[in-house]
């Protein structure tokens, strides 16, 4: 085997060919489908079973949910397709379908750089297996927190709570600016009619921590500076799961007679798994089947063909020691995140999506953000710390930012794991999300004796869960005034939060929705 004759590796060189074109077409189509389904989830007029297909294809989500909830869902069997794909083609999901992988390919930053970036040691590849084991053990103990690191949930959450709202802001600001220019008013209106409510919501939506999600996402892209597809190589737990399955994959990359050791394949491999020391062989668990090497090879030295025999175990692959460490870590971690106050007493304003009260919500929710995207009023927001670390980025209802729309039951329809039950509109209308309480110190009718019945007016319950009592109050000057004072009928209140959302005072509303107290009516 002779060493490379080219003295200078051309790092900006990218191979091309029919296979690569095909792969890219598939990648962009998959990304497009992912985005289109996201937009359709937003619009709410497409069946939930269609918009949540990407999540259901993800075997990591399906397996963790199964271990944690101990309920087998028919919908999750879609993930078997991905498993089957992996058993045949190895990690083709990563190279051909994963939307996050495609984004990382689009931003393969280090190819533009001239420096010969020193890639991290191979041992780092073990991190993803370690993460995977922690996730699965924690899931067995009923905790799904680390699913925030699943590539699909990560991308989807960022889309819903960060990228889309930001695009919406930019578009709205441009529209406001351009509409003032006389001859642009008509085209701007036409553009807006095309964009809303089809692609962007008709009313601007706001998400807490939109910036945090964006920073995490950009951070993962920035890791590409260190090595191409850094995330997929070293961190991605789904990649880890598919990697282990790939050990038994049917189709393998093999180096044949034609190889003259030119190292071109080593240079183009996005996961850096082609090892010149091992006769240019690669690890099927690391290979994303991108076929760059196939097209790069000038001598047809590389073939992909079927072969039935498990691949060799590498140093970085999970071993007994890692398994034990991850087991210990998962147990300790789950115990610690449960040893916080929120498990003992429900936080006042930890409102969950409709229908989840009687449900072991935390054991089911995979933090995918489908419900966040589907909620038309942006009432559902990824939790920050309301639910403790255990409930990180699970959906919570924040009435001051949006209300639970009386004409909507989208969250339950799109939930891929039935953490939010799929209720009909009639069923959902009777679900008690919380209970409203009036803060009479802040209410302008109660404390300032001004006419305001907005909460009562907005209440969607047919017989009004907020009622008004006429009272005679004494004003500062001594004269009296007849005024209507709002009260909450807690037997009727469903906690939709439109009263809190529309309360006209600034800052904290004078009426707030609290977690429902089951015993409040028994007194």
């Amino acid at each position: 085997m002779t060493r490379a004759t080219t003295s200078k590796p051309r790092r900006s060189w990218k191979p091309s060919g029919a296979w690569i074109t095909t792969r890219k077409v598939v990648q962009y189509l998959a990304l497009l489908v992912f985005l289109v389904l996201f937009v359709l989830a937003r619009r709410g007029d497409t069946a939930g079973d269609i918009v949540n297909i990407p999540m259901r294809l993800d075997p990591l989500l399906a397996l963790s949910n199964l271990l944690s909830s101990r309920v087998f869902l028919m919908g999750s069997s879609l993930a078997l397709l991905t498993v089957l794909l992996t058993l045949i083609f190895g990690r083709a999901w990563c190279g051909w379908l994963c939307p996050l992988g495609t984004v990382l390919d689009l931003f393969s930053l280090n190819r533009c750089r001239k420096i010969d970036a020193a890639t991290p040691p191979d041992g780092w590849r073990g991190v993803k297996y370690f993460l995977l084991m922690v996730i699965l053990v924690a899931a067995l103990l009923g905790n799904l927190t680390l699913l925030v690191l699943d590539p699909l949930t990560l991308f989807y959450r960022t889309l819903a709570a960060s990228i889309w709202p930001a695009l919406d802001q930019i578009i709205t600001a441009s529209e406001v600016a351009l509409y003032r220019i006389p001859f642009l008013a008509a085209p701007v209106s036409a553009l807006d009619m095309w964009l809303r409510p089809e692609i962007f919501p008709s009313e601007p939506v706001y998400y807490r921590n939109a910036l945090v999600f964006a920073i995490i996402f950009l951070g993962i892209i920035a890791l590409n500076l260190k090595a191409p597809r850094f995330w997929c190589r070293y961190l991605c737990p789904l990649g880890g799961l598919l990697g282990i399955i790939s050990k038994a994959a049917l189709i393998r990359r093999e180096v044949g007679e034609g190889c003259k050791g030119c190292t071109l394949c080593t240079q183009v491999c996005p996961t850096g798994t082609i090892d010149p020391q091992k006769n240019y062989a690669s690890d099927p668990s690391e290979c994303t089947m991108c076929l760059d090497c196939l097209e790069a090879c000038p001598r047809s030295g590389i073939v992909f063909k079927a072969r039935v025999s498990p691949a060799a175990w590498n140093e970085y692959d999970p071993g007994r020691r890692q398994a034990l460490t991850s087991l210990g870590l998962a147990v300790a971690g789950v115990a610690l995140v449960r040893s916080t106050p929120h498990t003992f007493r429900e936080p006042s304003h930890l409102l969950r999506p409709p229908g989840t009260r009687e449900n072991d919500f935390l054991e089911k929710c995979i933090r995918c953000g489908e419900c966040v995207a589907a909620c038309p009023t942006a009432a559902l927001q990824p939790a920050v710390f309301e639910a403790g670390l255990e409930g990180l980025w699970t959906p919570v209802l924040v009435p001051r930012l949006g209300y639970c729309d009386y004409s909507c039951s989208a969250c339950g329809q799109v939930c891929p794991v039935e953490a939010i039950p799929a209720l009909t509109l009639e069923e959902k209308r009777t679900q008690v999300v919380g209970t409203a309480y009036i803060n009479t110190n802040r209410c302008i009718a109660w404390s300032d004796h001004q006419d305001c019945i907005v909460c009562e007016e907005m209440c969607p319950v047919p017989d009004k869960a907020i009622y008004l009592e006429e009272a005679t109050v004494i004003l500062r000057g001594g004269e009296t005034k007849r005024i209507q004072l709002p009260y909450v009928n807690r037997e009727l209140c469903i906690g939709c939060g439109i009263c809190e959302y529309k309360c006209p005072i600034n800052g904290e509303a004078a009426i707030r929705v609290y977690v429902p107290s089951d015993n409040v009516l028994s007194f």
Partner: protein
Amino acid sequence: MAKMTRREFLRYLALGTSAATLNQFLAACGQSAETLMPTDTAKATWTKALIPTETRQSPTATHTEQGEIAPQATTDPSPEPSPTPLGSPDLVVARGGQPEELIRHAMAALGGMEQVVSKGVDVIIKPNICIAYHSYEYATTTNPWVVAALVKLCLEAGASRVRVMDYPFGGTPEQAYIVSGIAEQVAAAGGEMAFMPGFKYVATEIPMGRDVHEVEIFDDILTTDVLIDVPIAKHHSLAKLTLGMKNLLGVIKNRSAMHRNLGQRLADLTSLVMPDLTVVDAVRMLMDHGPTGGNMADVKNMDTVIVSRDIVAADSYAATLFGMHPDNLDFIRAGAEMGLGTSKLDELRIEEVTANA
């Protein structure tokens, strides 16, 4: 494909942008002034005719300026005030019949839609589509066939375009348009459902305003040639009733703030908007738990519509259907006091027609 340098890219980008801009500009020049800058001729003449002389300085002053730029360009054949022919009633009440028949009879008795809509004008119909919760049977949103009949009459009178819009406070507009049944009927009648996007709200002075002097209002409401206000008669706990004047709350941005001193503030808003025609839908009335409703027990079938070019008069008459005296409603008193119309029903020429006769 040859690789493009950054400089070339920027050059093409600039070229493309300017071409696109120029294109829009040229397209804009080619259009008639009326579509781009709808004049308020129709509205201005109407308000002049209605408002007593002492308060006559047009309430839509900000927009009459635009109107003066190109009044000749309009196809409005009657620039002089001629709101109703002599002998036509001020207000018509039609009873007993299908919604479309009610509207047709009522408008015919009022002197025909041609009194309001001239050939080629742009019309906006503002029904009450305040929530996306219930179908029209619950009497929370305007009857779809009432709206559709108005669309047809406007088109028959020669309107160039009839748009129907509202901005609900509960649920999304797209959902509300469908649930109310209005989207379907309007489309069948040849009108278009339009949305009210946030960027189109402009801060506008209310020259006659007594309590509110500026509101952020949907631009098209002020720039359209003809505005038809089509409320449904409903209970409301603060205003007591929501009728034509209250329905106008749907065209502004910050509605919650209007609830203090609601009566006067509604009158202030009405002085700015001044619909050219008010049609109160009392086919079904919501007697309690308004404006959101949802309980069939609160719905009363009346098979009645009220039409008038005087919004205060229309609201006053509608109040009597609930057994209320107009003077007991703050917004009607405030509106009458500001000279926006008359609340004294005995001074009006009221014609009652029966649609199924």
